[in-house]
């Protein structure tokens, strides 16, 4: 069992997951492809015998709160939450930009894993790379997941929040179809999440 905390969210991975890594915090990433300008990495990668999970987390709730607070004071929102908005961004990205970020991180993560396997002889990176290279021919699954909290169009309260997740799901499928279109998921703890073998807990007070 491996537990990873990302902001207020806690992801508990069951025993079927052989490798679970906070990829953007690993030495393999930092010493490897991180040095290449423009390359970005996913938050969590996990590998079981028959599935590779590529997980990106976006928590817009703090930003929503800040925005609401600023708006209540009659000011434009200035500060942005760490987990929601990327460096250099002034506000929450639109649908296409948001899924484009995730798609770039998927590509950057795959490139980083292959590089780590070749150049650093990192054992788990080699296993990921082999799995990803052969998953189609071996009929194994790559699951790309964007986990969103406080869906930004409506601060998570819109009646359309659920259908907005559907829109993002379809957009993300389009961006990562070169790798996998089944399954691609955009999940949130507000909608019944189904991430097999993973328990997600929200620790936000």
């Amino acid at each position: 069992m491996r537990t990873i905390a990302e902001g207020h969210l806690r992801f508990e991975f069951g025993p079927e997951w052989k490798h679970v890594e906070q990829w953007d915090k690993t030495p393999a990433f930092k010493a490897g492809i991180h040095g290449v300008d423009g390359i970005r990495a996913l938050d969590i990668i996990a590998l079981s015998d028959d599935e590779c999970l590529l997980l990106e987390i976006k928590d817009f709730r703090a930003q929503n709160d800040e925005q609401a607070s600023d708006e209540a004071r009659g000011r434009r929102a200035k500060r942005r939450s760490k987990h929601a908005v990327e460096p250099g961004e002034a506000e929450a990205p639109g649908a296409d930009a948001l899924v484009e970020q995730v798609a770039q991180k998927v590509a950057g993560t795959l490139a980083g894993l292959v590089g780590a396997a070749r150049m650093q002889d990192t054992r788990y990176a080699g296993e990921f790379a082999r799995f990803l290279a052969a998953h189609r021919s071996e009929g194994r699954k790559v699951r790309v997941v964007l986990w969103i909290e406080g869906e930004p169009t409506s601060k998570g309260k819109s009646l359309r929040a659920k259908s907005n997740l559907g829109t993002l799901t379809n957009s993300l499928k389009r961006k990562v179809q070169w790798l996998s279109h089944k399954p691609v998921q955009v999940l949130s703890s507000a909608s019944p999440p189904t991430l097999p073998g993973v328990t997600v807990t929200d620790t936000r007070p």
Partner: protein
Amino acid sequence: MTSGRKPDERWGELRRAHGSTFTTAQAKGSGISAPVLTQAVARGQIRRLERGRYEFVEGDKSASQRPAKRRPGPAPLKLLELENFGVFEHAKFEFCPGVNVLIGENGTGKSHAMLAAYSILRAFHRDSSPRGVAARVEEKLKAVFKPEDRRLGRLVRRARGGGTARVSVESHGFSCEISFNHQDPDSFALVNLRRQPTGSSIFVPSRELIAMYEGFIGAYESFNLSFSEVYYDTCVALNAPLSRGTRNTEVQALLAPLLDALGGRVFEKSGRFYVQQGQAKLEAHLVSEGLRKLATIVHLINNGSLERNDILFWDEPEANLNPALSKIVVHFLVELAKQGVQIVLATHDYSVTTRLSILAENEIVEPELIRFFSLAKTKSGAVEVSHAPTLAGLSANPILDEHEALYDFELRGGVA
């Protein structure tokens, strides 16, 4: 008085008096009314040559001798190629045997592509016409597309290198290519004909039919109506008598969800359609327009006009239909395809397309059962066609683009 005679005697008298071709008035003189003529057309006993003029189908002497509808093996539409036709400079549709979904903005030629394939296939529906296949296909295109002054040249894309339109259709054991020039009205040519298509084609237009059905066939035959002939064809198909006996369990299971949505069975009486809802008999025009389209499909299946090996062209099944019913439509489309009916549909609907794609992505259906086609305008104004097994694989998807735009619109608090 002719009413005391048997139907076969009336047909015999008509044939003896007027030979193989006759008019509506001559038929009436032999005691054969316009509705009976229409039913005979639907049965394949006679063929309509032009407004008010018919001919006997070769070899059809009586009902008992009528050949059964040909139903050889699977006959999906395999290929449609359009060159300088409408908005297409060169477009190729490689269809799957199951559900083929055409998406694209308005004006990208979805309906035109379907009508082109339908016109050619339908022109062969009843064979052995003395007029020849080229004349029949030409006439069918004119009747379906209704170009001004009946000039097919108006369908030619007039761009650089244009001037001649070509349309090729290939299906199981059948191929046909036609061409025509935009200037010369006598340029129509049919080449590369190989055998006859198998199965028949039904086109369900975006406007519903069963409410307008009453009197439409007679009116279409008697007056110069501006409706495309697909309306007439499909009304004639609706007019066919119900198949005898209980439909098999597969068909019953297929129709059950549609009948649930309709709230009862569909039937025709004295030239008018009704939906029986419990004890109440509701005239078709009192049923909502979206449901009437479902009723049309139900009746076409019930009367045997749409069955295994046939092709269903369905333009915007979602039109006027509550989105909640889209799951029923999708389930029905998939089940119909599994039963051997090939489907080509044009749609703008997010729910219908996404549901079908999810079934394909998760391999709930066979890989070749669903295929998506994207029709998108290029900078030159011509339309390009691409296809993929799922929505995600399409190079252009205006439905999803609009949903993304809606997401962004909401994100910006309603500021464009």
